């Protein structure tokens, strides 16, 4: 079963008298453990797509299935629960809570879900340690580098063991070195820990870590490129795909 499946996903924003089509009948699937980058010029609908997949916004038309659940069928409570348990979010500016330590930030989703603090902290420590932050557990965000803060944010996204991670420009605020580190970590999240990652980025260097790139333009997918070249056949696959899209 696909982790993500969209059908004619469309979003139109009405501002005053003009309607702007941010997404225009988008269809695609993402399989388990795939690392997908979404690219395209600004205003192409990348972030809208991520918000609709994450249930943060409602489509004007069309459908999103997450692990077989049709998002538009869910009431607000069920949607909140699905977001908390099945989807982890990562943002450009980390969105950590300044007054909380690394471990408290990472444990937050579990505490909100009603887990006992001691158990939640243990789980948070486990993820933070995997991300080389075992000696930074008690530090507040302002005592951490940008790269370290983003690693805390990734730990927070993973702590509830979601199957899907959605990342919106996760390296947009980081220098080259920290960006590579975070992109490498997201790759590890798919390859080692078996999660699915969809990442919006404008940076080719970062997109190259993914297995697949979706290119959006004017709200449509104009290109779908496989990057994995394990058997050397992927170039043919890509060319075939391009023919499909073009014809």
């Amino acid at each position: 079963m696909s982790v993500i499946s969209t059908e004619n996903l469309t979003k139109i924003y009405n501002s005053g008298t003009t309607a702007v089509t941010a997404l225009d009948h988008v269809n695609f699937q993402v399989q388990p453990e795939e690392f997908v980058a979404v690219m395209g010029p600004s205003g192409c609908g990348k972030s809208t797509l991520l918000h609709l997949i994450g249930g943060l916004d409602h489509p004007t038309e069309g459908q999103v299935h997450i692990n077989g659940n049709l998002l538009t069928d869910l009431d607000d409570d069920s949607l909140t629960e699905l977001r908390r348990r099945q989807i982890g979010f990562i943002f450009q500016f980390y969105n950590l809570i300044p007054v909380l330590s690394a471990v408290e930030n990472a444990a937050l989703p579990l505490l909100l879900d009603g887990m006992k603090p001691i158990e939640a902290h243990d789980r948070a420590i486990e993820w933070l340690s995997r991300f080389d932050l075992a000696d930074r557990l008690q530090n507040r965000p302002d005592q951490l580098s940008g790269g370290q803060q983003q690693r805390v944010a990734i730990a927070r996204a993973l702590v509830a063991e979601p199957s899907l991670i959605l990342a919106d420009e996760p390296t947009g605020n980081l220098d080259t070195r920290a960006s590579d580190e975070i992109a490498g970590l997201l790759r590890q999240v798919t390859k080692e820990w078996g999660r699915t990652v969809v990442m919006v980025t404008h940076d080719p260097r970062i997109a190259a870590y993914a297995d697949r790139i979706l290119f959006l333009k004017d709200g449509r997918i104009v290109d779908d490129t496989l990057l994995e070249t394990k058997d050397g056949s992927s170039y043919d696959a890509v060319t075939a795909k391009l023919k499909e899209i073009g014809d």
Partner: protein
Amino acid sequence: MSVRNALLGLLAQRPFYGYELLAALDGIVGGHNAWTVNSGQIYATLERLEKSGLIEEQPVNGTAPDKTTYTATAAGRQELTEWLSAPVQTDLQHDEFYIKLMLALSLEGSDPYRLIQIQRASLYQELHAVTTQRDDLEIPTNLAQKLLFDKAVMHLEADLRWLEMIEARLDDVKRQPVQQVEMRPRGRPPKSARGAKSPPQTDKP
């Protein structure tokens, strides 16, 4: 790469057996994947270097006579010094993709946007492969080779950004056709034209 100069540089350091040179070159560039030189090239180059008097054979005591090492001569060291102190020229404007694109713009039935898509997919695959190889390097021991991978990454990034720019401007470029070459008759002008006076210029004020 100039295999010739690279070999000269190695042989100026110490004597090498022919077969050692291949491994030594791989060691510099970070493995056979980064830069493929085969042993045939090495031996052919050694032969030419020897003929030019830039390297010489050095028999090794106590081994079979066909086992010889090579070392740089004084002339070889001189040439190496000159090569090291000269800048390396780049040739960025000889770009095959550019030529393809320009032709596709004016050839019927070819879609320049498709060309861009295919090129972009291929560049991303290359970038993905280089990124993966670079991240597989053991950094404490392979820091030097990482620089070469970084170069590849940066150039591929630049090419991808260039494609983005082309895509954004392609419609403008299309409207501005490639300048036509003025056709001039070749060879001697026909008799009737010979000695004929140029037509009076009427567009003068």
